[in-house]
C-alpha cells in the first residue's frame, strides 16, 4: 500500500486485490500495467485493504476510480462492470465485519471530510478468489488489457 499524501492529484486509481489469491490479483495487476503510463496528475494506489481502511484513499482528490475483482455469480468470469454510486443499491444493514465502500464514503461525507465526489467502480467478474497461490483464470487475465484501455480513455 502506498500512502496517499499529495493533495494536488486530479484523480486516483484505487486498485484493490490480493496478489496471492488467484483472480483477486486482478486490480493490482491493472495498477502494474498503468503505472508510469498515466498523466502525473493521476495517483495510482494499490491496496489490499477493505472497508473503513479505504477511507484514507477516498479523501483529498475529486475523483476516484476503484478497480476490483467481484463475484456476483450473475455473469461469466471476465465480464467487466462499470458502475457508479447511483447504479448500485448498497446495503445499509450492518455487515458482520466490514463496511462497504459507499458506507465508508457516506461516513466521510457525514464527518465533513474532503471525500471524492466522483466515484466510479470498474469490477471484473472473478472465478476463483479463494485459492492461495493460485494463478489467475484465463478469462480474468484476458480482461486486464481492456480494463487498462478503458481507464486510459477516462484519465489518460
Amino acid at each position, binding site marked *: 500500500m502506498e500512502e496517499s499524501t499529495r493533495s494536488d492529484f486530479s484523480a486516483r486509481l484505487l486498485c484493490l486485490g490480493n496478489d496471492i489469491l488467484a483472480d483477486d490479483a486482478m486490480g493490482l495487476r491493472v495498477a502494474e500495467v498503468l503505472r508510469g503510463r498515466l498523466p502525473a496528475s493521476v495517483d495510482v494506489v494499490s491496496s489490499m485493504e477493505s472497508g473503513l481502511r479505504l477511507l484514507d484513499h477516498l479523501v483529498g482528490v475529486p475523483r476516484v476510480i476503484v478497480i476490483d475483482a467481484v463475484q*456476483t455469480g450473475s455473469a461469466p468470469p471476465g465480464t467487466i462492470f462499470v458502475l457508479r454510486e447511483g447504479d448500485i443499491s448498497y446495503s445499509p*444493514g450492518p455487515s*458482520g465485519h466490514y463496511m462497504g465502500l459507499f458506507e465508508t464514503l457516506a461516513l466521510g461525507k457525514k464527518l465533513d471530510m474532503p471525500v471524492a465526489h466522483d466515484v466510479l467502480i470498474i469490477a471484473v467478474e472473478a472465478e476463483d478468489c479463494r485459492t492461495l497461490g493460485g494463478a489467475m483464470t484465463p478469462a480474468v487475465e484476458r480482461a486486464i488489457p481492456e480494463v487498462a484501455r478503458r481507464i486510459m480513455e477516462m484519465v489518460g
Partner: protein
Amino acid sequence: MSDNKNRAVQETLAKGAAKADASYMSRRITIDPITRLEGHGKIDIFLNDQGDVDRAYFQVPELRGFEKFAVGRLAEDMPQITSRICGVCPTAHHMAGTKTLDDLYKVEPTETAKKIREMIYNIFMVEDHAIHFYFLGGPDFVVGPTAPAAERNVLGVIGKVGVDTGKQVIAMRRRLREIISTLGGKVVHPVFGLPGGVARRVKPEEQKHFQEVAKEAVEFGKFTMKILEDIVLKNKDYVDLILSDAFTHKTYYMGLMDKNNHPNFYDGDVRVVTPEGKEYARFPIQKYLEHIGEHVEPWSYVKFCFLKKVGWHGFKEGADSGVFCVAPLARLNAADGMATPLANELYQKYVATLGKPVHHTLANHWARVIELVFAAERFQQLANDPELTSDNIRRLPTETPKEGVGVVEAPRGTLIHHYKTDDRGVITMANLIVATQNNSARTAMSVEKAAKGLISKGVVSDGILNEVEMAFRAYDPCHGCATHSLPGSMPLIVRVRDLEGNTTATLRRDSDGRIHKE
C-alpha cells in the same frame, strides 16, 4: 462372520448412511451472502421432520491451499506471507509469525525489541477495538437492536454519538496508524518483525511524539468508556438484552495471560478456565496440540476447536463439553484482573455488575472497551519506557531451525502459528489456528439458539436475519480474508426447503434494509 457377509453388512450400512445424508441435506436452510463483498458468512439451518430446527451452523469460508502454498517457502517469509492473507488484521498475523520464528530459531528477542513489538501491537489493538466498537458493533449497541433498519448502520451510529465524536475516532485512528507506519513500514504488510528482534529502532526524537499520542489514546479510552456507559449501560433495554438467555452460553474460556493472570495481547501462557471460572489449564503455546483439538463435521470444511482433554461431545455447553470461547469476553473471564490501573478499575466494575465468569456473549462489546483502555495504558507504559530507544534491537539467531510455535491474542482471540522446517529453514509443514476457528463451535451454538427461537414447524420468522446476525457479530468473526469492499446489493438471503429439497420460501434483505418474503 464371513468376509462376504461382512461386506454385505457394510454396504447396507453405507447405503443407509447415504440415504440419511441425502434426506438431511434436503432439509437444509442456507443463509448465504450472495457476494463476497459484504463478508462471506454463511449459515446452514437443518430442520427435523417436524420442520423445527435440528441444528444450525455458522460457517466462514476458508481460503484453500494454505499449507501447499507455504510448503517450500522460507520460514522467514512467513510473517509477510501470512499478513498478506488477511486485509483486516495483518499486524496480528505478522506478530504471530515473527514470534513463531523466534521459537523456530530458539532465539530470545532483546528486551528493547520485545518492548517495541508489544507497543506496536497494543497500538494496533486500540485501533482495531475502536473500529469495532464504533463502526461495526455500533449498529447493534449504540444505535440499538430495535432501531429501524435504515438507521442500523454506521451513519446511525454517528447520528447517535455525534459528528464530533466520529471525527475524534477517525483522527485517533490516523494518529495510531502513523506510528505503525513509522516503525513497521507498510500498515497493511508490516515488515518490522525479525527472528530475535525488530528491523528498526525507535529514535529518541520519536519517543516524545509516541508519548503524546499514547496520552491521547488513554483519554480516548476513557471517553469511549463514558460513551458505553451513557448510551449502553444506562439503557435498561440494552442491559436486558445482554443478560438475556438467548445470548448466553456456559463454556470454557481461553486467553493469553501474564504471570499475574492478567491478559497480555503480545505474550504469556495460555490460560483456560472452566464454566465456573476455575483454572482448568495453563500452558506455554508449544503444548497447544496437547490441549486444543480440531473437530471435523462431515458437512463442513470448518474445523471446530475444542479442549482435547475434556473431549468433543457435540455443540454443548457445560464443564463436560470441550467447547471453549476466545476474544474479549473470554480473555476477561480467564483473567484475575487487568495489569493497568484504569482498565483494572473498569474490570472490577464489570465483574461486580455481571458476575464472573460472564457467560453473556453480547458482553463482548463491554469487555472490548475495557481492553481498549488496557491497550492504550500499556502503549503509554511502553512509550514512557527509557529502554525503548536503545539500539539493542536484535539478537541474531544461531540455532538450526526445526519447529516453532507462536501465539498472540488477536482482537478476535487467540491466534496460533506453527511451522516445521528442514535445516535450511524451508517450510515442510505449516498450520494456523485463527481466532474465528477457536470460537467456531460456540458461535455455531449461538446461531442455533437464535434460529431455534425463530423457526417453528417450517415457518421462518422475518426477524431471523437480524437476530442470527447479532448472535454471531458479537464474536466479530473474520469472514475470510482479503475481502474487499464493493457493495453487494443483496447481502443476505434465506431459503427454506421442504423434505424434497423444493424451495418453499425465500427471505431476502434488500437495499433498503427491509426484509422481503417471497
